[in-house]
């Protein structure tokens, strides 16, 4: 267990997540730019990169509040989007039992889809906990740094972009892209169709509540189709 081995693992973590970072940087720029054009309070939106550090939920908050939705709808939507990280936390917990509390807090704070997925792919065996933690921290910190730089740049550049470019449309486009990546089988397709359909049908509901009703309907529909296919 030499220092060389540890630093090699750190380097591996940075290298593994770097190609993924190329896709995250435009996402961060879009978040900054669209926040400026959507008219939400800018310092709060910018601070969400540090406080929340979860891109899709940060964009959803801007979308809901920028469109006149209620704060509670923004909160519930963001938490629903981030709930998937429960699964990552459950898996990571198997590797971190002997880490000090401080490290556990750090590991939890920088948890992202990308850092977790590259690390779990590389260290599938919980007996190699040291390698997992070093690799994960390197990947996670790389993601964190990339996210802060790209979103901050987006906020700085955003003010210079003319309104005629309609850049706020990049938000639904981003969610559209995430949607095509999230649908991998038939029950998930049904969940998307029902979730979107019900959200449109429930447009008349106040405070963007249709968003939550649509999401709940989609999840139930997906689970029903899954159990029927079995």
């Amino acid at each position, binding site marked *: 267990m030499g220092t060389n081995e540890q630093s090699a693992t750190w380097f591996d973590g940075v290298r593994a997540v770097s190609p993924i970072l190329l896709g995250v940087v435009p996402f961060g720029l879009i978040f900054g730019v669209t926040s400026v054009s959507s008219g939400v309070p800018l310092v*709060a939106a910018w601070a969400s990169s540090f406080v929340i*550090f979860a891109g899709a939920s940060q964009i959803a*908050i801007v979308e809901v*509040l920028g469109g006149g939705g209620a704060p509670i709808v923004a909160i519930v939507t963001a938490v629903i989007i981030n709930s998937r990280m429960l699964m990552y936390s459950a898996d990571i917990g*198997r*590797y971190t039992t002997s880490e000090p509390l401080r490290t556990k807090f750090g590991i939890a704070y920088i948890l992202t889809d990308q850092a977790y997925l590259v690390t779990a792919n590389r260290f599938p065996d919980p007996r190699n906990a040291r390698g997992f933690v070093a690799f994960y921290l390197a990947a996670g910190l790389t993601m964190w740094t990339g996210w802060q730089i790209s979103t901050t740049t987006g906020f700085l550049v955003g003010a210079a972009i003319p309104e005629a470019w309609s850049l706020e449309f990049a938000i639904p486009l981003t969610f*559209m892209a995430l949607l095509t990546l999230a649908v991998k089988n038939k029950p998930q397709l049904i969940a998307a169709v029902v979730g979107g359909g019900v959200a449109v049908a429930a*447009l008349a509901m106040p405070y963007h509540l249709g968003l939550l009703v649509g999401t709940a309907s989609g999840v139930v529909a997906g689970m029903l189709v899954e159990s029927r296919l079995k």
Partner: protein
Amino acid sequence: MSMWAVVLVVGLLTFAIRYSFIGLFGRIAVPESLERALRYIAPAVLAALVLPAVIAPGGTFDPWNIFVPAAIGGGLAAWTTRSIGAAILVGMPILWVLQAAV
């Protein structure tokens, strides 16, 4: 002010989600029913965000507006390339062309 409140509350709750099972020493597994539900959250919530924004911009139902073809084009680009950037690179120009034409 309410934006700040939303950011702080979501930040705390998101940290709680991330820390949950790490804090439980990894001894407790995710219940099977919750794990099943989590698989459908991403498709359902993303579609519920996208569809109204595209076919009912500003809150009024209008399936023939120019956002629809732009979103379809962007979605197809993302689906074929597996990249978020592609949706922007294809979807935004479609919107600009239609804005200039209509």
